[in-house]
C-alpha cells in the first residue's frame, strides 16, 4: 500500500516540469486527428504537441495535407476524428489562434491600418483609439508606418505579407499558423521575413509554419514534421531532421528540395 503511493508520487514528479507545481499542459495537443474529404482521407491519425514559445515546421510534398492540417487547427475545417486541446481545454474557434493564408486574403477595400484594426473594433469591441494604438504598434513592428493609409493593391509582395501577419496578430493570439507565406517571395524577401518572424518568436509566440523552403524551415523551426499522404512520416528537432533524416522518404524529399535552402 505504502509502496504504491510512493510510485504514484514518483511518476507525478517525473511528469511535472517544476518542483511541486501542477504540470502545465502544452499549448496545443493534437491526438489522432483525421480528416476525410468525402471519404478521401487527407489526414490520418496525426498526433503531436506544441509547447509554449515553440516553432513547429511542417514540410512535405504538395497535396500532403499541410494546409488541411492548419485549417483544422484554426477550426476552419472540422476534423473527422480525433481531439485537439488548446492549453489543456477542448478548443473551439477563438482568437487565441491566428492564421495567415498562402494567398493572404487581405481586404482590398480597407487600408493597411484598417485591415489590422477592424478585428479589434468589430470583434473585440475595443474603442477606436485603443485599436489604433495597437494597430500603429504593429505597423511599427513590421516597418509599415508609412503605409498606414495605403490600400493592399499599392503594396509590394513583402509588405502585403507583413500586413497579413500583423492582421493575424492584432488580437495577440498565442499561436500563429503560417501557410506557405514564402511561396511568392524571392530569396531576399524570405530573409527579411525570417527576421520578422524571429522577432515574434522572441516575444514568445508559438507557431506552426508550413513552407516548401527548406532553408526557411531549418533556420526558423525548433522541431519539424515531415508529412506525406496525410501521415506524419518523421518528426524530429530541426537540425537533426535536416542533417540526418531517419526515413528514406524524408531524405529523398529533403534532397529534392535542396534548392529551397538559403
Amino acid at each position, binding site marked *: 500500500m505504502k509502496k504504491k503511493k510512493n510510485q504514484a508520487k514518483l511518476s507525478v514528479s517525473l511528469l511535472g516540469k517544476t518542483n511541486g507545481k501542477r504540470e502545465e499542459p502544452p499549448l496545443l495537443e493534437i491526438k489522432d486527428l483525421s480528416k476525410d474529404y468525402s471519404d478521401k482521407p487527407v489526414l490520418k491519425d496525426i498526433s503531436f504537441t506544441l509547447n509554449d514559445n515553440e516553432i513547429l515546421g511542417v514540410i512535405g510534398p504538395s497535396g500532403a495535407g499541410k494546409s488541411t492540417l492548419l485549417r483544422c487547427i484554426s*477550426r*476552419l475545417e472540422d476534423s473527422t476524428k480525433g481531439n485537439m486541446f488548446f492549453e489543456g481545454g477542448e478548443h473551439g*474557434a477563438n482568437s487565441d*489562434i491566428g492564421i495567415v493564408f498562402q494567398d493572404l*486574403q487581405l*481586404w482590398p477595400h480597407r487600408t493597411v491600418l484598417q485591415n489590422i484594426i477592424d478585428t479589434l473594433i468589430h470583434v473585440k469591441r475595443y474603442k477606436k483609439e485603443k485599436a489604433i494604438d495597437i494597430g500603429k504598434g504593429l505597423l511599427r513592428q513590421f516597418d509599415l508606418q508609412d503605409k498606414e493609409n495605403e490600400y493592399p493593391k499599392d503594396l509590394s509582395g513583402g509588405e502585403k505579407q507583413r500586413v497579413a501577419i500583423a492582421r*493575424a496578430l492584432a488580437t495577440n493570439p498565442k499561436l500563429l499558423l503560417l501557410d506557405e507565406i514564402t511561396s511568392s517571395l524571392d530569396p531576399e524577401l524570405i530573409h527579411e521575413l525570417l527576421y520578422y518572424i524571429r522577432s515574434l518568436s522572441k516575444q514568445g509566440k508559438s507557431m506552426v509554419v508550413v513552407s516548401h523552403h527548406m532553408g526557411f524551415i531549418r533556420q526558423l523551426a525548433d522541431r519539424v514534421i515531415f508529412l506525406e499522404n496525410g501521415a506524419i512520416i518523421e518528426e524530429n528537432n530541426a537540425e537533426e531532421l535536416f542533417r540526418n533524416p531517419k526515413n528514406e522518404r524524408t531524405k529523398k524529399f529533403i534532397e529534392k528540395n535542396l534548392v529551397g535552402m538559403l
Partner: protein
Amino acid sequence: MSYTWNFGEIWKYKEVFLEGSVITMELTVLICFFGTLLGLGIALLERTNNRWIRIPLRLYIDVTRAVPVLVLLIWLYYCIPIFTGLGLDSFATALIALSINMSPFASEIIRSAIESIPKGQYESGQVLGFTKLQTMFRIILPQAVKQMIPNMVSLYITMLKFTSLASVIAVNELLHVGNTLISNTYRPLEVYTTVALVYIALVIPLTYLSKRLERGVSIGKVAV
C-alpha cells in the same frame, strides 16, 4: 404631309414638364432604393438553408418575374384598396409595384456579385472571429458593391423608363403630364416629342455614367 410643328405652344408649359420630370425622378429614386433593398434582402435570405424561407422566397421570385409589370401595377391599383381597405394613392401604388418588379432582378445582380468574391475572403473573416453577418456586411458586400455597380445602373435606367407605365394609374409623372397637356393644347406630336426628348435627356447621361463605371471597375480605378 405638311404638318406645321408648333413647339412655341409647348414652351408655355415648360414648368408643367419640369414638374412631371421631378415626379419621374422622385419615383425612380424611390423605386431604385426600395427595389435594391428588397433585392439585397432576397439575395441574403437565399443563402440560408432553411426551407421555410427558401420555398416562399422562390415562389415570390417566380411569381414576380412571371407577372408583367403593367399587369402588376393595375392589379395592385385595384386590389390593394379592396384587400386592405387602405386607400393608397397612385404614387405609392406605382412605387410598390415597380419596386416589387425590380426586386428579383436586383437580387440576381447582387447574388452574382456576392458570388464573385473569393471564398478565402469569407474565411479571412471567420478565422478572425467575425460573425457571418459581420463578414457579409463588412468584408463581402463592400467588395461586391464594386462588382455590381454597372449592372445596377443599367437596371436603374430600365426602372426610370418603366416609371412611364405609372401614367396609366394617373401618377403625375412625365408621360401623364404629357397626356393631360394634349387636351389643353391639341398638339400630341409636339407633346410626345417633348416627352421623348426629356426621357432621352435623363437617360443618356446615366448610360454614359454606367459605361464609365464599367470601365473604371474593370481596371479597378473606382474606389467605392
